[in-house]
């Protein structure tokens, strides 16, 4: 039975990724799409209102600035909604505190969805819908747009990286909304509620009365998984039966989480060479396979796990969710086996197996550049990528992207202990509580969003510290990656044989080992103090 579930998830997500990847390749190169005329008309209407010329091209700096400004405005809107939801319609609740509102806005705009609040208790239907569902489209669309610009940097010469507003509009209107819409209907059919009421009152079998929190759950749930968001309508996230009613919804949500991250290397394959794209996909799947193997090597639960998912369904969902940096959870992390938790850390440390919508793919290319540099040093060849020389600046930027992550995890972890905040929240320092602190910052920096602490972390220290880490962990790497793409797009390319081939079994093997070695060298001591000692 379990093997069938695994096969359905893998075949389903890869099969859909082939279709989506082809479509994304057309979006990247502005090729004609099915229904081009109709979609073009709608999009042109949007461009007219927005006031952009769809042919206008942006440099990497302009593109990055457009992402940041759009995201800041969207986050400002969300923060205002959360602070003043008591004055807004649809079952108003008290406004959130400043630190919690800032944390939540940062969390959703960065595609993290770390949740220091209890959704069904603290947020109004207006906040969940107009605030969070809206942001669940903005964040992944920004990530995917960045990946589009990044890929264009390698296939275009001195022609700009595209136009952010055009990419953003097309990604939301023709990719995310249609898929989220049909997925929401399927989830609805399977049992996710969809209403504008915040509660539903029902009788009980023994004649009592019960009040059950509800809302527009299905429409949030679909984009939550598709957009590698992960923020639940309920604080119990996807373990809540309204978010994830049965085994079919569980499998479907796994496929939704995987489809876009797996589509991007396929789009890349269409544009930059089949071998190169498939090799990147293979390296991602090897990493994901290691996570799954770790998680499934030991049985989890039954405490903390939902009966309808069991150990296999919970482990598969959680490893998928963490691998794609979605961060949704269909079981309590505390119910998972130590090996499964080590798998989660691996996924958050690498961020590219397959990683979040857009950024996972970019991160893997960063690993490719680092691998080419290191292997080039070993064999004494000038490293080249796609017939372009990799210069010292590229390597510096790539190394910087790689190093931001451990810095953002390890420094705050130490600060949480030296300031006493970890102790105040979790009590005595043990391998288990150290793991929880390390996990919180790994999740924040990787823009993942799964966590042990939940509402326990609703204190000014955790709210402010994780918010800034999420913001730096999101925008610094995207900026640096776009800078890399911006410098490649100016470079001469000659059609010669690459000194080190970036496709094929050998390269996939070297890349996978390199990803593992770089990650292990960086984080191993901290894993020993935490999850390895539980």
């Amino acid at each position, binding site marked *: 039975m379990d093997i069938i579930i695994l096969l359905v998830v893998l075949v389903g997500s890869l099969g859909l990724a082939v279709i989506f990847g082809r479509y994304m390749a057309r979006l990247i190169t502005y090729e004609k799409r099915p229904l081009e005329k109709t979609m073009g008309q709608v999009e042109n209407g949007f461009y007219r209102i927005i006031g952009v010329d769809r042919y206008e091209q942006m440099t990497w700096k302009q593109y990055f*600035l*457009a992402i940041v400004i759009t995201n800041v405005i969207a986050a400002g809107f969300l923060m205002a909604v959360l602070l003043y939801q008591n004055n807004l319609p649809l079952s108003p609740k008290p406004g959130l505190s400043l630190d919690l509102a800032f944390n939540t806005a940062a969390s959703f705009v960065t595609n993290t969805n770390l949740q220091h609040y209890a959704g069904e208790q603290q947020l109004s239907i207006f906040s969940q819908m*107009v605030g969070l*569902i809206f942001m669940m489209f903005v964040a992944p669309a920004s990530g995917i747009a960045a990946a589009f610009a990044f890929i264009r940097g390698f296939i275009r010469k001195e022609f700009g990286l595209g136009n952010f507003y055009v990419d953003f509009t097309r990604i939301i209107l023709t990719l995310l909304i249609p898929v989220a819409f049909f997925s929401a209907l399927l989830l609805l059919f399977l049992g996710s509620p969809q209403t504008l009421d915040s509660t539903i009152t029902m009788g009980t079998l*023994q004649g009592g009365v019960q009040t059950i929190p509800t809302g527009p759950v299905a429409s949030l749930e679909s984009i939550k998984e598709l957009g590698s968001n992960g923020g639940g309508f309920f604080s119990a996230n996807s373990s809540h039966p309204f978010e994830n009613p049965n*085994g079919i919804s569980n499998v479907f949500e796994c496929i939704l989480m995987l489809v876009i991250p797996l589509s991007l290397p396929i789009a890349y394959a269409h544009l930059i060479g089949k071998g190169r794209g498939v090799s990147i996909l293979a390296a991602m799947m090897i990493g994901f396979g290691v996570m799954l193997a770790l998680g499934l090597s030991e049985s989890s639960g039954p405490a903390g796990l939902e*009966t309808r998912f069991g150990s296999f*369904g919970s482990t598969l969902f959680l490893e998928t969710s963490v691998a794609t940096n979605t961060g949704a959870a269909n079981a309590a992390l505390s119910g998972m086996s130590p090996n499964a938790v080590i798998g989660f850390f691996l996924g958050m440390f690498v961020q590219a197996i397959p990683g979040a919508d857009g950024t996972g793919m970019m991160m893997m290319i960063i690993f490719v550049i680092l691998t080419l540099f290191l292997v080039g040093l070993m064999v004494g060849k000038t490293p080249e990528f796609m017939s372009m020389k990799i210069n010292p600046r590229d390597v510096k930027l790539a190394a910087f992207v790689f190093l931001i992550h451990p810095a953002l995890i390890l420094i705050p972890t130490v600060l949480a202990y030296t300031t006493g905040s970890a102790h105040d929240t979790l009590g005595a320092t043990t391998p288990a509580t150290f793991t929880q602190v390390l996990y919180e910052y790994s999740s924040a920096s990787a823009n993942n969003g799964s966590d042990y602490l939940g509402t326990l972390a609703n204190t000014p220290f955790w709210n402010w510290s994780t918010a800034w880490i999420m913001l730096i962990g999101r925008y610094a790497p995207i900026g640096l990656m776009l800078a890399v793409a911006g410098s490649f797009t100016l470079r001469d390319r000659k059609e010669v044989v690459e000194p080190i081939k970036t496709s094929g079994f050998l390269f996939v093997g070297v890349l996978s080992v390199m990803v593992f070695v770089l990650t292990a060298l960086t984080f191993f001591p901290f894993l020993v103090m935490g999850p390895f000692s539980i």
Partner: protein
Amino acid sequence: MRTITSKVFSPAIRIVVLMIITTGIAYPLLVTAIGQTAMPSQSNGSPVILNGKVVGSELISQSFTSAKFFQPRNDSASGVDPDITPDSAVSQIPAISGATGIPVNALKTLVDLDVARNKETNALVFTPDYVNVLNINVELVKQYPDVYAQEVSAKEVP
């Protein structure tokens, strides 16, 4: 300088407003309209109906004070897990049989039927076997109305 600033901010503000309307308002409202029209039961929390009265949601656990009923788990990830494992259900059979006089075999059959029903809901392969506590208790009340008359009578509000 002024034109540069407005060139950067103006499209960003406009695109955010457009997307708030499209993704934050139009999209969830459309799903709500379709759900409430075409799938009213699921849209409103999958109510279970017994004798014309709603007795709970199939998806949300409720507590049972009477020993004549199957009991839900008291730990679980979501806190509202509506299901128990077949083993847990079987282990409760002797006590329920003792409290109600219903034969052990009949209870075991009900458990098996519920497991089979849930298997069907999940296309046979997508979940481990489980028992839905509310469904099996409703089935008990349906099949043995006399035994449960007192337990469910409270809901006959005058």
